[in-house]
């Protein structure tokens, strides 16, 4: 399923994107909700087990990168009876196009959910055009 993504990356092949090709097998891509309000986009990511202190959200003009390590849930169990979780670091990248202000992104982490609010530039906000 990753092959398609490689294609997409290559098509847009800028050095900035190539730089972010990290060994992705090591990471778990967190699921996301994204919605648009009148003045911002809001991205919510499910990252259970991540810690606020070790989460890294970095923003560049065209790119937001989210990383969060997860510690193993069990230390040295005598026996593992059920194992469904995948305790790897979270990693997900979002590309932004123009119209969003990457310098004013707000991020908060609560209940294992990272919420990022990405404000729109004035040029992107809906304008009402007065009828003469």
């Amino acid at each position, binding site marked *: 399923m990753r092959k398609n993504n490689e294609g997409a990356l290559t098509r847009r092949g800028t050095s900035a994107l190539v730089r972010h090709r990290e060994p992705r097998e090591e990471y778990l891509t967190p699921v996301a909700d994204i919605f648009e309000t009148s003045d911002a986009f809001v991205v919510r990511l499910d990252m259970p087990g991540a810690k606020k202190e070790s989460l890294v959200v970095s923003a560049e003009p065209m790119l937001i990168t989210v990383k969060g390590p997860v510690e193993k849930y069990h230390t040295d169990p005598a026996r593992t009876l059920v194992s469904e*979780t*995948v305790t790897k670091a979270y990693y997900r990248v979002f590309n*932004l196009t123009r119209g969003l202000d990457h310098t004013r992104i707000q991020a908060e982490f609560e209940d294992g959910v990272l919420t990022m609010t990405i404000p729109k530039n004035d040029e992107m906000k809906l304008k009402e055009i007065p009828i003469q």
Partner: protein
Amino acid sequence: MYVRFSPLIDSMFFDRDLTDMFSGFDISNGVLRAGLPAVDVAEHDSKYEIVAELPGVKREDLKVSVEDGTLTLSGERKQYGFPEGIRVVRHETPTRSFTRSFELPKDVDQTRIAAELKDGVLRVQLPKAEHARPRQITVT
């Protein structure tokens, strides 16, 4: 689950998982795909421990109960719906309520079960009854 796209918005967020929206996460695990929380169960010398991933679930929306030797986790992520008047660009998170049940081993002391929810992870401690714990016998 519903997702709406318009050409304008697609170009706004171009995530590299766009082509595989719903299978784009690395969990090849039917439990999570069904919207149920992923669970680990480990056994230690003195206890069992259940760990469940419940991102976005508030303590008041979660129920942990024990009845007839069965432990049941149930809940819903109520607080994380979408606000009114917004436009949904992508919706990948599970929203349905969930229930998972576990038959408890006989050696669990059911009166001392404790549960804690933190950072979207529920930990249920199930201590073993004193008589069931492994003991070191000193050889004299």
